[in-house]
């Protein structure tokens, strides 16, 4: 048993990777789904085991092929990435039962197995980025997850899915290439690719080569920001989410951007923060205006959107603004708020997109005008949508409230009360766009498109209800979300170099 425990970091990535390869040999869609569900189900077990191990006995260092770092590739699990691993794997595992009917409805029979193969590859890439301690290895996993997500998006029924996937491919590749340029510059000045080792050597290197070090930060920052859809680098996201198959949208919205945010946290706090004084770098100065612009402009765009999937996609851009705002605050409460919102938003958006997927399954449309009265014909689905929507707004008692509470406390602690005010004001815009959907769903006469619709089969309904329940549950019991996030923020902030004192 202990031999197995020692291999857990490797297994976290190897199981879904081998699973993806084997899924490619399966022809029947139902069988491929069963296989993918089985593989996905193992990943949260491994992730939880890692989290417990890290929580009780500190960070784990796993040497691939027995080569010690910094020469070999190291998988390094600390509380931050164990937390993200649990999030990504758990949300995927909860969503998996949903995939069977939804994918069978939206994708041709002979392509379903390939869909699950790509899904598993994407999961592999996301888990790999999160677990690795090597900058170049992270790039390879980034491309594994990106390439497979382009395919997932392109499998949407609408021909616009192809164009959305192509645009995402162009922008995603530019982002990944910027990331490699940044890593290359860091490699040139430090001679290392291991995150921890770069951090150790960077202080000395930046005294000698100040400009490449700063240029490296700029490239890494822009590259990762393209991936996490930081406003105004988000243009690929609305179409990609709108035209992808329902399950792919829910999966990517809940996991892919979150992993990119994790990578940004890693670069800012575990590399640059350790070696240089973060206050002397213009990170917050860039993140504040962009985050606030995202919170307002993307929310307002969501209000004017009539396609519900696009509306939620814009809302995702806005919510990412809250997370990056938490990063920009760089104090205990603010960073806790950012990280806990990363967790809560994954649950909330997962639930919302699954609800839309259920509506697509029964009514075949997500155009707001066609969905009048859907709340009466699909009561449970719409109830879940409303509950998750309330959490998105940050109604007290829901998970979204916890995130916003910490962010506001963080803003006040930083002495920036206008930002605290802006957080509340932008939440009211969420009330408008969610409220508009609720108005159509419950207070309009039943339209022809949804007249014969009913709640989806149990296999689709249960994951949706579980995620909607979770988006409320984590507003009451905050042990796993805010508790761990607070500890993570503490560790990240204690590691960084503070101006003046070393």
């Amino acid at each position, binding site marked *: 048993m202990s031999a197995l425990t020692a291999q857990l970091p490797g297994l976290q990535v190897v199981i879904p990777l081998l699973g993806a390869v084997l899924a490619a040999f399966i022809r029947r869609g139902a069988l491929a789904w069963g296989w993918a569900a089985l593989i996905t189900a193992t990943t949260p077990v491994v992730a939880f085991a890692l989290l417990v191990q890290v929580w009780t006995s500190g960070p784990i260092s796993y040497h691939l092929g027995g080569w010690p770092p910094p020469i070999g590739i190291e998988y390094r699990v600390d509380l931050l990435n164990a937390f993200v691993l649990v999030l990504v794997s758990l949300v995927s595992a909860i969503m998996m039962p949903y995939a069977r009917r939804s994918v069978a409805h939206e994708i041709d029979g002979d392509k379903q197995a390939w869909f699950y193969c790509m899904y598993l590859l994407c999961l592999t890439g996301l888990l790999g980025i999160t677990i690795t301690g090597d900058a170049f290895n992270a790039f390879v996993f980034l491309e594994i997850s990106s*390439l497979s997500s*382009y395919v997932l998006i*392109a499998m949407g029924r609408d*021909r616009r899915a192809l164009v959305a996937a192509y645009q995402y*491919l*162009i922008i995603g590749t530019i982002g990944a290439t910027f990331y490699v*340029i940044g890593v*290359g510059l860091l490699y*040139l000045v430090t001679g290392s*690719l291991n995150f921890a080792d770069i951090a150790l050597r960077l202080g000395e290197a930046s005294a000698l080569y100040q400009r490449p070090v700063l240029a490296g930060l700029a490239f890494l920052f822009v590259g990762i920001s393209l991936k996490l859809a930081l406003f105004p680098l988000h243009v690929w996201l609305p179409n990609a989410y709108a035209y992808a198959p329902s399950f792919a949208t829910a999966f990517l919205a809940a996991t892919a951007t979150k992993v990119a945010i994790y990578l940004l946290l890693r670069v800012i706090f575990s590399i640059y923060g350790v070696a240089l004084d973060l206050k002397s770098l213009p990170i917050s100065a860039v993140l504040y205006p962009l985050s606030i612009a995202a919170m307002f402009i993307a929310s307002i765009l969501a209000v004017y959107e009539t396609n519900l999937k696009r509306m939620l996609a814009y809302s995702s851009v806005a919510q990412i603004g809250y997370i990056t705002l938490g990063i920009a605050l760089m104090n205990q409460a603010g960073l806790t708020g950012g990280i806990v919102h990363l967790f809560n938003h994954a649950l909330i958006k997962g639930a919302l997109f699954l609800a839309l997927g259920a509506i697509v399954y029964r009514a075949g449309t997500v155009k707001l005008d066609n969905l009048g009265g859907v709340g009466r014909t699909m009561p449970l689905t719409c109830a879940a949508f409303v509950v998750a929507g309330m959490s998105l707004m940050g109604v007290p008692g829901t998970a979204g409230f916890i995130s916003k509470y910490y962010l506001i406390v963080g803003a006040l602690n930083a002495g920036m009360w206008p930002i605290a005010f802006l957080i509340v004001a932008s939440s009211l815009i969420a009330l408008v766009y969610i409220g508009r959907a609720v108005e159509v769903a419950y207070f309009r006469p039943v339209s022809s498109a949804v007249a014969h619709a009913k709640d989806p089969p149990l296999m689709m309904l249960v994951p949706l209800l579980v995620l909607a329940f979770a988006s409320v549950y984590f507003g009451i019991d905050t042990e796993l979300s805010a508790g761990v996030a607070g500890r993570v923020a503490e560790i990240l902030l204690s590691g960084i170099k503070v101006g003046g004192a070393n």
Partner: protein
Amino acid sequence: MESFKSLFDHYNYVVTIVLMVAGLYIVIARGNMIKKLIGLMLFQTSVYLLYIAPGKVIGGTPPVLDAKFTVYSNPLPHVLILTAIVVGVATIALGLALVTRIHEAYGTIEEDEIFARDEQE
């Protein structure tokens, strides 16, 4: 004169940057989807140079262990870029496959014409 000298001393970086900017410019400025992919390839290739050129140690031999030599070039960038090339090939292949499908679905690969057709719907 001094800045000219440093420019020529670092001509490999100059080439890298020219390729990088040219590639990125093509991606942004061209509406033809194949041309965009060509620009993207150029952009990625410039990064290969960024990594590989500094791996050469002046006076160093290829990194094969031999008693006669003491100075070796750094082999690690080559290995990294081998991986990056594979990733680049996969990206372009997928991009071309998507363009083929787009051409089947729309009958054109010009971005503005595609947007115009989507607008009409």
